[in-house]
């Protein structure tokens, strides 16, 4: 009797996907478009996949494209370690292993319908947020006002610049961008992303606020939102951790009693009161 190979699915077994497109976005970020070899791939914005590079290992990466893109999906990966380094060496046509989509804590795709949305992104925090942003823009009539706040460390690290420019020109999106460090090539805002919060035209108190960025950013964003009395149930935080197994067993992503890979990665702020390790 061997259950992995017989009646029970092996939850650790990746399925093959093919790299359809790959490009270097800036000095540290690589863009990939993948399609599953067995066809369909359904997910909800906020979900992640475990990407396997044989011989290097697996890494959890949140999907950056919207489900409206079709059967393929996009990832953006920063080169920081062993697996992400190997991902950066991928070429068109290469095979990778994929487990997922994983995570039950996703963006409030349905609950947000009819509401105003404010996306607050720090650096590559834009990568997961982009999945929901594009979903909203592809179903524009279903949602209210949309404001996107993007803070980036420096001019050369900006991501998705053509896309951000297109969003700015749409007329139905308030696109605000800032750089931590000023640059001769940059004519826009300078300073941290929280400095953009007062510029948001939508009423923050009634909007749904979606936040993703480096750990330090959350404290300051939450302080800025607290000053404007934004109810905690309206704030959604993407808490990426070390989701090693991705299926609630290995323990690495646990925040108090919550496994990020199971309950997250997107959490409603009002649910974090019992999770002091979260922020």
């Amino acid at each position, binding site marked *: 009797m061997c259950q992995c190979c017989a009646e029970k699915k092996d939850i650790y077994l990746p399925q093959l996907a093919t790299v359809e497109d790959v490009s270097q976005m800036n000095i540290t970020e690589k863009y990939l478009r993948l399609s599953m070899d067995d066809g369909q791939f359904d997910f909800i914005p906020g979900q992640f996949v475990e990407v396997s590079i*044989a*011989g290097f290992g697996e890494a959890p990466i949140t999907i950056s494209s919207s489900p409206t893109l079709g059967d393929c999906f996009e990832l953006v990966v920063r080169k920081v*370690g062993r697996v992400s380094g190997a991902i950066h060496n991928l070429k068109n046509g290469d095979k990778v292993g994929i487990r997922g989509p994983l995570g039950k804590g996703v963006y409030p795709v349905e609950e947000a319908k009819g509401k105003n949305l404010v996306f607050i992104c720090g650096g590559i925090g834009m990568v997961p947020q982009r999945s929901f942003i594009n979903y909203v823009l592809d179903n524009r009539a279903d949602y209210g006002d949309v404001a996107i706040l993007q803070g980036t460390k420096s001019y050369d690290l900006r991501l998705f610049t053509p896309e951000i420019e297109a969003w700015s020109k749409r007329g139905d999106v308030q696109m605000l961008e800032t750089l931590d460090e000023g640059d001769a090539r940059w004519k826009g805002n300078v300073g941290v992303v929280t400095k953009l919060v007062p510029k948001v035209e939508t009423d923050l108190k009634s909007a749904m606020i979606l936040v993703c960025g480096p750990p330090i950013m959350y404290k300051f964003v939450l302080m800025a939102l607290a000053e404007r009395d934004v109810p905690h149930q309206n704030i959604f935080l993407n808490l990426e951790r070390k989701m090693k197994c991705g299926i609630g*067993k290995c323990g690495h992503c646990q925040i108090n009693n919550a496994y990020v890979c199971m309950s997250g990665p997107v959490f409603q702020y009002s649910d974090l009161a019992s999770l002091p390790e979260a922020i």
Partner: protein
Amino acid sequence: MTVKKITKSDFVRFVDALIATTKTIGVQAKGDRFDFAPLASAKDLRLDYDVTLGPPKKFFLPPAEVLLTYQVGGAYESQCDDQEFILLGVHPYDVVAISQMDELFQQDNYDAHYMTRRNNAAIIACDVARPSDHVFASSMGTAVVREGYDILLTEIGDGYVAEAATEKGEKLLAKAKGVPADSQALKKREEVWARNRKSLNKHELKCDPAYLPKLLAKAYKHPVWEEQAKTCFSCGSCNQVCPTCYCFNVQDDVSWDLQTGTRSRAWDGCLLDGFTKVAPAHEFRKSRADRFRHRLYRKAMYVPQKIGGQIACVGCGRCVGACLPDIANPVSVYNRLIDDLGLG
């Protein structure tokens, strides 16, 4: 189900018959201590042991195991160990731990690697004949069990009472020569149970274990975590010897030809520095005190929420003996909290 009385000499023949047909892992002496290891002969079996060095979890969740093999750039293939085996001489507290692990590895996402081994195992439990130096199973309500095994053995002077609890156990027990256990034998077994319910208690918890989640709910900021963790080496010994610690890491290895490789998982420990580290250099549970607290919260609050309130410390006392700076004893920490915070 059958309840037999087996003489000691017939029991030796029974164990040798098991060894002849099925891989049998039993408790044996290892220096002046004991551990589980494959049995070559019944004479090596030591059911009079106090506690084994390592818990029996390693036969279901090995310290390192291959999950998958792959061709570099090609498909992945599941690997699993599907040999039947008998685990002989498991103490009640370890039986409880195995039952908890079974639930954890089946819930939400069924772990076929763990469960294949588990379903291929027959567990022959045995009541504790000699308490170890640090056991506190009586405090945790795990000194005696009536489920979670296929056969339960209880030594009653001149022989054993052996009770089958499952079909699997019934089939195995059919190989043993014995007589139906009479009321006198059963009375002796009751006496062993009554004794163990009280005597496996070298450290006495000052509350009902069911109260522990409530106690921890008000203890998150208590100074005990910082005080105890001051001398913690972050060595993870407490994780390693714990029958209910199951966190693991996963890694890839490539063979010498660079064409094929394996993906393995190996035990990890939440007390180890780097357990929550993500690239490039952020560590979410960096302080020793936070890691120390996390382990004890997992045992008495977080894991219980996943398994219907059962406390995930079974009172084996292994961590107490394994911890060099002597800070791991859960009973000392919980009792200190009870002293300071009361039972209300």
